[in-house]
């Protein structure tokens, strides 16, 4: 079942169109990454979904869309640079936000303590937020976004401000949260998307240029590519197979060669034959898998 669907979404600022008509819908229980280079419109899209911005045209329908219902209670949102009341402690802020989200005082307190533990800042719970480090603020931001048990959690670049350890932890946290809610997060760090997400949305220049599961995207964009590595310069060996007509392009760099082939199976066999009869000094043979990075570059350059 789709949890939110977006139709013909457009947004202009002072006549400049930032989002140029996008459509998609998110399936309940999935983890979706919103990918795109800087300035692609990721943040603007998330802000519109969270209700912080009005679309210029287009509709956003939550679930089956009960008219007039306040959808904010189903949504958890973490902006790219979360800000808090600096004079509150982390615990007070969570309590406050929890109560605003409709929890009773007792429930909110319980939940706040639990979440502070979960995001790993419970030892700083009685410190003023003004004294928190960037990473701690990010964690507090995640905690405040999920305190009212939203159905859809939206995170704007949740890990870009964190160090490698923090990133690891947040990703693991997302992995856990995936079981309880639908997650949509924007990022330009491709590994993160690959790690936790089932589905990808590629945004570029305000348009949705590609979307689907990682697997389906791989299949669609997979090119038959073979990477070889030699002990010495490979040119003289490779001459023998360039004439076979199996190769559509070849890229040699130092001792490495990357070969795009027409038919993977035939090419593999030919290369093995040549390698054994001519005794190639091979150190590596790899049928390369399309990485998200390749996909990203391809989609963005298109």
């Amino acid at each position, binding site marked *: 079942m789709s949890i939110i669907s977006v139709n013909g979404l457009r947004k202009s600022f002072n006549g400049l169109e930032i989002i140029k008509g996008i459509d998609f819908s998110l399936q309940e229980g999935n983890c979706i990454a919103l990918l795109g280079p800087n300035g692609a419109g990721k943040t603007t899209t998330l*802000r519109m979904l*969270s*209700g*912080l*911005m*009005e679309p210029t045209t287009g509709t956003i329908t939550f679930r089956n869309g009960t008219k007039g219902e*306040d959808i*904010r*209670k189903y*949504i958890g*949102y973490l*902006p790219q*640079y*979360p*800000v*808090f*009341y600096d*004079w509150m402690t982390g615990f007070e802020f969570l309590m*406050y*936000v929890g*109560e*605003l*989200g*409709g929890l009773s005082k007792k429930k909110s307190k319980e939940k706040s303590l639990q979440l502070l533990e979960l995001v790993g800042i419970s030892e700083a719970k009685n410190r003023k937020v003004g004294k928190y480090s960037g990473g701690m603020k990010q964690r507090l931001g995640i905690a*405040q976004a999920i305190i*009212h048990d939203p159905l859809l959690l939206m995170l704007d670049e949740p890990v870009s401000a964190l160090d490698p350890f923090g990133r690891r932890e947040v990703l693991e946290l997302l992995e856990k949260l995936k079981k309880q809610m639908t997650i949509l997060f924007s990022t330009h760090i491709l590994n993160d998307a690959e790690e936790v997400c089932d589905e990808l949305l590629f945004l570029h220049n305000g348009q949705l240029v590609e979307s689907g599961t990682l697997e389906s995207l791989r299949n669609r964009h997979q090119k038959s590519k073979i990477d070889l590595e030699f002990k010495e310069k490979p040119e003289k060996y490779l001459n023998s197979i360039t004439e076979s007509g199996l190769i559509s392009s070849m890229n040699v760099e130092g001792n490495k060669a990357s070969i795009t082939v027409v038919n993977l199976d035939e090419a593999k066999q030919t290369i093995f034959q040549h390698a054994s009869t001519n005794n190639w000094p091979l150190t590596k043979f790899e049928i390369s898998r399309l990485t998200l990075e390749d996909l990203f570059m391809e989609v963005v350059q298109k």
Partner: protein
Amino acid sequence: MSQFVVLLKKELLESWRNFKWIWMPLTFILLGVMDPITQNYLPKILDTMGDLPEGAVIQLPVPSAEEVISMSLANIDMLGILILVLASMGIIAGERKSGVAAMILVKPVSHHYFVMSKWLSSLLLMWISLFLGLLASWYYTGLLFEFIPFSDFLLSFVLYGIWLSLVITITIFYNAFLKTPGLVGFISLATIIILNMVSGILTEWLAWSPARLMSYASQSLMQDGLPENTIASIVLTVLIMIVLLFTSVFIFRKKELAV
């Protein structure tokens, strides 16, 4: 309703933690006691400090207790308003500018309650500070001149408090659609000064103007019963406050909060 209480409690806690609950009453008390004291000791001060020729006789009319209290009112009317506007000019605008308003309003928080909680907490702080300031003025005037009936004091306090409530409402109103606290402060003060000036010049025509409440408050000290047009002025002030509040919520809801 419980959400409103949560929001209001936060506002009160915030103004407590940033010491508004200390310095604002203190400032009003200072403004309140200044006139009774200076009026009482002025002849003596002039005598000892003033560089007057030998044998010069200073004759200052001794002001009545009512006059001293209305001097305190006039004092608060200048500096008190400035302080109130400065203290509340960033109450929404500042939160919008920093982005924390977006963090809060992405939660299911009523815009109505959000604005009203800020309005009410500023109002509470103002009424209590004003009460303490005028009470100090009444008490010191009583000690140094003579005590005026407490009920007279209460009446002028209430009349004047209504005018200051409008001052706060105007500041909240500009807060709803401007993002820069300094600008909110400037435009609020400009509005109040213009209102004051115009009402002061066209006293006949604008007898119902909210800005006349200040002079009605001091007139009420001098005479029995309410000055003419006071009720009309109160009604008009309350009406303007209601309209301004509803408009602020309406405008605020339409505003895009993202920074």
